[in-house]
């Protein structure tokens, strides 16, 4: 193509003078647009252009508002207005005329009108409401092109509230004889599904018809909807798996008409869409996955032509294969395919290869090893995006052994990086790794210092927060705690003695806090010295006033003794007259507390740092003050959103008249009034605004702080297991000088020939980067020492394991095998102990000496091998190893009955089915939720299906819609072999959505050293969070008026007997746990709340066989979501 498009702008002026332009293009150089464009090209300065355009806009403005302008001229004017907007000049005066043109023009003019509307307005623009009637009219037109235009604009933007007005017309088009109309109608419904899913719920069966449409274009369009729906709820569409597979088979076999081919590949877009759908359907589902294996293999095989488009399909195919239930042959082929990407000389393919590797490497770390040379090359690639993706990949394979090297690479990138977004992202990742895998105190503090300096003030605030939290909470070992804090103090003191003015504010805040809290630990450090250093910060110009507050607070904690008081006094004098009230207050505090020693000891007790403070988040201590103020005539408090809303209402267009065309007319009772009619309490001036505001969202911020590693990640020194991690880290650090000599005889590196110097450097880098991903196929250079230490750890654990979990082991060969291991390893231990030279820099307990690397040993082979993959065990022909291999894990993957492990306190409560979420070689994760009266508890079961105990499991949960907090003391668990660890989390709704989802990562370290993680997600409907809200009719009335978010819809009531309203409400009450407040005649009022304290009120009215439901809540989106569930509940009944 690029050779076809070979004309360039350079010829522009000469071309413009020629009237006859080649091709079908009519160069409208005589038209006004042509003149404008030509005029602009002749200009030389931006200033001239601005003048010209302003003149042009003025003339357009004059003409559009003139009554004599015909629609035809209007069309021409609109094109010019679009052009001006594209150049960056505002032409908002023309928006309304664009709508008019779409409304009144002939088909041809309409086309331009609609185009202008779709370019000028975005979907939240209020003028869009004026388009509704035009669309309505055009949808009914007999001219197919007009129908097409209307559908096109609707699929791009349409006001959500107006969907019911045109929905029947769009639905009707699904059976239109012309395929182009059917196709556009499907896409319009897709748009509706995205912006208001509950509105199109009833037409799901019609989507199926579209899927079966004889026209491939319509079928393809329907896949957009299916992809979305299946992503949200894969369980609901499992029955379609076979159909999607069949469609894909036909496409791949070339059964579609030729014009769907793209560079002789049959319908690639369709193939990719189907592969995405299959990935969702096959995820964690063996039986569905099995249906797909054949076609996936076929797709891999077919896509051979060397063209971008086949690579695009391959990429999607590989992703799918790695997402669904694994099949080893397919995985092998997919891995080979990734190899082709990674090794490609085309940079785009290489990038995608890295991206694919990043995606799969957690499941199959071996792959990273295979491509280590390429990965190292990419790390120095001139194109930043390649570098960046490589770091992403390394991030995923980081473990305790290679963390230092990888973090260094990331920091190196960060230092040269200028893009804020990348910095924020990478800095977060470095902090995460540092917290998870830090080999020692010094490294940790130094790395975090770099993070703070490089991350500057743009980084996520939770990084310093969790760092400080970590320091203050400490670990189990008091001594280690002290050392860490001491080191932090030392390193910060020396930073402050340097040039603190260059440090970012956030870092200075961290420093101040640490010095304030812990500088006393360094006995020889004079409080006065610290105070002077801090005072110096106050004098620095660049210090922000927020930082100054931190500094003053730190000084308050430190000031002691004679010199301290005098420094403090000096500072106080300066700041007690500061214009900044916060600073002034801090200065006052400092002044008082520095003089009154006893008071200071009481206010700032030194050793009580870890005790949680009680915070009255409801601010109830202010109640007296509030009621006094109200009594004195003050206006009641209105929450922020409500004020905004009222402001907006005062200014904005009234939405009301447009409510009529929707089929809601029966609901048009006096608008902002209480619908109950009986409860209008008009005198609400003195009332507190609404129940919801009382502490709903005001929970202390600390709760939300991510517990990246809590007490676990950095526990390094407290347990023997972690100790050996420490030793291992030293391996890579010193590898460059060691490995070439003693450690890497050529006989052990069969995969690599002796190489020249630069190559060798790369190999050394490789050995430190890919350490701990253990595999036979890897370079022995790197694998060996680490593997050996791990072996010893394993050995140490062995006996403990088999005795403590004896009752769990049903298969006798398992314990036999671990015994065999012990024997083997003990032998080696006896004969092969060498002296350790790598460790002295780290503070180690005597136990270290037993964890030394041995020179070689079959045990090492066995243990590295084991954690990679079962099937690789067969590669090794050593008899002893076969004997030592654990019994086949036949029971893995089977559903286990976890209900016995449900904590006893939940026994009487209603809980959901326990559903399996994810599993890998060693861990199966399942979960269920328990509905308590005031909370919802998510219970996660982790079954360790391996033969080894997993000492530390770190479970992290995150969710966009939910707030997750850990129940009980810590999210860290140990899972003994073949037993279940249980974690509990309490969930509350942060942002309502029809379904809410929690995504989780279980990460753990296998005894043999590889860090593993399992990802899963758990989805539950909003209904699980709904609880009845018991209010009186009067209270209901007051609340109703306060709530600002609402939605209305007509539902079909349930008719069992005489009283459909009663029956319907009973069903809703039973299914959704709503509280029926009162029923009067044909109207009913109902109330509920979403945990915690997010009320939603419902008013229903039975009229002419339909139930008009009106929902209101102070929480955005809640009414919509609840409406969806009401509709569902009634339909299912």
């Amino acid at each position, binding site marked *: *193509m*690029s050779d*076809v*498009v070979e*004309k*360039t*702008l350079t010829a*522009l002026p000469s*071309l413009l003078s020629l009237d006859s332009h080649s*091709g*079908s*293009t009519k*160069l*409208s*150089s005589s038209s006004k647009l042509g003149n404008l464009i030509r005029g602009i090209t002749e200009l030389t300065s931006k200033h001239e252009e601005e003048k010209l355009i302003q003149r042009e806009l003025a003339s357009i403005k004059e003409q559009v508002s003139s009554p004599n302008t015909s629609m035809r001229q209007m069309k021409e004017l609109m*094109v010019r207005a*679009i052009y001006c907007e*594209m150049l960056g000049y*505002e032409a908002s005066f023309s928006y309304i005329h664009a709508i008019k043109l779409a409304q009144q023009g*002939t088909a*041809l003019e309409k*086309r331009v009108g609609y*185009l202008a509307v779709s*370019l000028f307005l*975005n*979907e939240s623009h209020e003028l869009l409401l004026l388009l509704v009637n035009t669309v309505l009219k055009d949808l009914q037109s*007999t*001219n*197919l092109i007009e129908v097409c235009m209307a559908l*096109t604009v609707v*699929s791009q933007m349409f006001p959500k509230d107006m969907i019911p007005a045109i929905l029947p017309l769009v639905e009707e088009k699904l059976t239109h004889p*012309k395929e*182009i109309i059917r*196709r*556009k109608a499907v896409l319009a419904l*897709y*748009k509706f599904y995205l912006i208001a899913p509950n509105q199109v719920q009833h037409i799901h069966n019609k989507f199926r018809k579209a899927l079966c449409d004889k026209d491939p*274009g319509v079928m*393809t369009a329907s896949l*957009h909807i299916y992809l*979305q729906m299946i992503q*949200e709820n894969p369980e609901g569409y499992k029955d379609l798996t076979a159909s999607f597979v069949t469609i894909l088979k036909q496409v791949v076999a070339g059964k579609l*008409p030729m*014009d769907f081919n*793209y560079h002789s590949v049959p319908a*690639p*877009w369709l193939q990719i869409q189907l592969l995405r759908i299959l990935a969702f359907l096959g995820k964690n589902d063996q039986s569905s996955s099995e249906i797909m294996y054949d076609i996936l293999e076929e797709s891999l095989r077919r896509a051979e032509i060397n063209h*971008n*488009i086949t*690579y*695009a399909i391959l*990429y999607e195919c590989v992703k799918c294969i790695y997402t669904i239930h694994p099949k080893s042959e397919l995985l092998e082929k997919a891995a080979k395919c990734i190899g082709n990407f990674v090794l490609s000389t085309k*940079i*785009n393919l290489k*990038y*995608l290869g890295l991206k694919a590797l990043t995606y799969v490497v957690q499941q199959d770390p071996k792959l990273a090893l295979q491509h280590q040379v390429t990965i190292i090359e990419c790390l120095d690639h001139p194109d930043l*995006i390649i570098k960046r993706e490589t770091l992403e990949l390394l991030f995923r394979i980081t473990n305790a052994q290679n963390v230092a090297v990888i973090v260094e690479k990331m920091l190196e990138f960060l230092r040269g990086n200028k893009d804020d*977004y990348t910095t924020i992202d990478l800095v977060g990742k470095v902090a995460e790794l540092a917290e998870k895998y830090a080999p020692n105190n010094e490294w940790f503090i130094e790395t975090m210092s770099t993070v703070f300096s490089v991350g500057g003030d743009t980084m996520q605030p939770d990084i310093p927060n969790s760092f400080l939290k970590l320091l203050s909470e400490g670990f189990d070992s008091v001594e280690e705690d002290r050392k860490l804090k001491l080191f932090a103090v030392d390193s910060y003191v020396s930073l402050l003695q340097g040039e603190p003015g260059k440090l970012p504010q956030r870092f200075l805040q961290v420093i101040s806090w640490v010095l304030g809290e812990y500088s006393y630990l360094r006995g020889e450090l004079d409080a006065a010295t610290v105070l002077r250093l801090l005072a110096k910060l106050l004098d620095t110009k660049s210090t922000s006033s927020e930082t100054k507050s931190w500094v003053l607070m730190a000084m308050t904690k430190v000031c002691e003794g004679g010199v301290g008081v005098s420094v403090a006094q000096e500072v106080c004098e300066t700041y007690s007259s500061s214009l900044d009230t916060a600073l002034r207050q801090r200065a006052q505090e400092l002044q008082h507390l520095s003089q009154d020693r006893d008071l200071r000891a009481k206010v700032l007790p030194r050793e009580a740092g870890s005790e949680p403070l009680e915070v009255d988040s409801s601010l109830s201590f202010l109640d007296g003050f509030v009621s006094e103020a109200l009594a004195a005539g003050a206006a009641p408090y209105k929450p922020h959103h409500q004020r905004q809303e009222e402001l907006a209402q005062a200014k904005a267009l009234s939405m009301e008249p447009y409510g009529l065309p929707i089929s809601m007319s029966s609901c048009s009772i006096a608008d902002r009034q209480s619908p109950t009619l009986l409860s209008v309490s008009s005198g609400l001036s003195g009332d507190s605004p609404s129940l919801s505001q009382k502490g709903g969202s005001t929970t202390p911020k600390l709760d939300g702080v991510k517990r990246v590693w809590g007490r676990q990640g950095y526990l390094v020194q407290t347990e023997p297991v972690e100790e050996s991690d420490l030793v291992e880290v030293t391996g890579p650090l010193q590898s460059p000088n060691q490995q070439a000599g003693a450690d890497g005889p050529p006989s052990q590196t069969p995969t690599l020939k002796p190489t020249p110097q630069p190559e060798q450097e790369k190999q050394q880098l490789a050995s430190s980067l890919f350490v701990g991903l253990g595999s036979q196929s890897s370079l022995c250079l790197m694998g060996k020492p680490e593997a050996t230490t791990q072996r010893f750890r394993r050995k140490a654990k062995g006996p403990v394991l088999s005795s403590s979990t004896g009752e769990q082991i049903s298969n006798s060969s398992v314990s036999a095998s671990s015994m065999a291991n012990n024997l083997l390893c003990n032998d080696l231990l006896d004969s092969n102990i060498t002296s350790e030279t790598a460790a002295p820099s780290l503070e180690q307990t005597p136990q270290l000496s037993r964890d030394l690397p041995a020179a070689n040993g079959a045990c090492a082979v066995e243990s590295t091998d084991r954690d990679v993959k079962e099937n690789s065990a067969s590669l090794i022909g050593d008899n002893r190893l076969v004997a030592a291999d654990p019994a086949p894990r036949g029971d893995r993957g089977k559903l286990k009955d976890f209900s016995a492990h449900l904590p006893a306190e939940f026994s009487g409560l209603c809980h959901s089915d326990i559903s399996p979420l994810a599993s890998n070689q060693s861990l199966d994760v399942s979960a269920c939720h328990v509905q308590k009266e005031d909370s919802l508890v998510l219970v996660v079961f982790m079954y360790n299906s391996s033969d080894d105990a997993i000492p530390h499991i770190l479970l992290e949960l995150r969710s966009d819609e939910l707030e997750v907090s850990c129940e009980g003391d810590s999210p860290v668990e140990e899972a003994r072999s073949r037993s279940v660890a249980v974690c509990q989390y309490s969930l509350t709704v942060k942002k309502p959505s029809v379904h809410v989802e929690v995504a989780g990562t279980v990460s753990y370290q296998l005894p043999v050293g590889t860090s593993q993680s399992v990802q899963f997600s758990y989805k539950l409907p909003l209904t699980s969070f709904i609880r009845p809200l018991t209010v009186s009719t009067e209270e209901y009335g007051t609340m109703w008026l306060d709530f600002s978010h609402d939605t209305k819809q007509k539902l079909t009531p349930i008719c069992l007997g005489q009283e459909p309203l009663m029956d319907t409400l009973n069903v809703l009450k039973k299914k959704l746990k709503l509280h029926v407040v009162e029923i009067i005649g044909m109207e009913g009022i109902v109330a509920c709340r979403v945990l915690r304290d997010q009320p939603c009120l419902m008013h229903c009215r039975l009229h002419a066989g339909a139930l008009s439901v009106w929902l209101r809540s102070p929480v955005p*989106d809640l009414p*919509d979501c609840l409406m969806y569930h009401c509709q569902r509940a009634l339909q299912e009944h």
Partner: protein
Amino acid sequence: MYMQSIHLMQFMLLFSRQGKLRLQKWYVPLSDKERKKISRDLVQTILARKPKMCSFLEWRDLKIVYKRYASLYFCCAVEDQDNELITLEIIHRYVELLDKYFGSVCELDIIFNFEKAYFILDEFLLGGEAQETSKKNVLKAIEQADLLQEEAEAPRSVLEEIGLT
């Protein structure tokens, strides 16, 4: 409540080597100010890249996919998780469509007939998703709508009889 589709294209920009915007289509609601800032930033970033570099780049939390055809740059923004290669081919298919329609397209065709380029884009990508990937079908739809243009001179009654039959 607004659900974000995972494979939605966020926007498409066409600009010249001189950095002049030739076409812009936004599939996600953004304010005017944001639009201007984004296009300015991206035009700058992309023009600064060397020819042999990767066609993809990270920009904020989005993935930008771009390709240069003669004097014009085509640039799309997709979600980070999306398949960049297929986006590249979407650009290419669009160029093919323009080429077929205009008959060996050049930047001038797009400058002077940008509304046509928009019409073609709307037939090919609707709301950020590929609507119709058959070249023949897209062009058929455009040509049929263009027919109206030819007949526009005729009286209205005739116009109303024209359908797609």
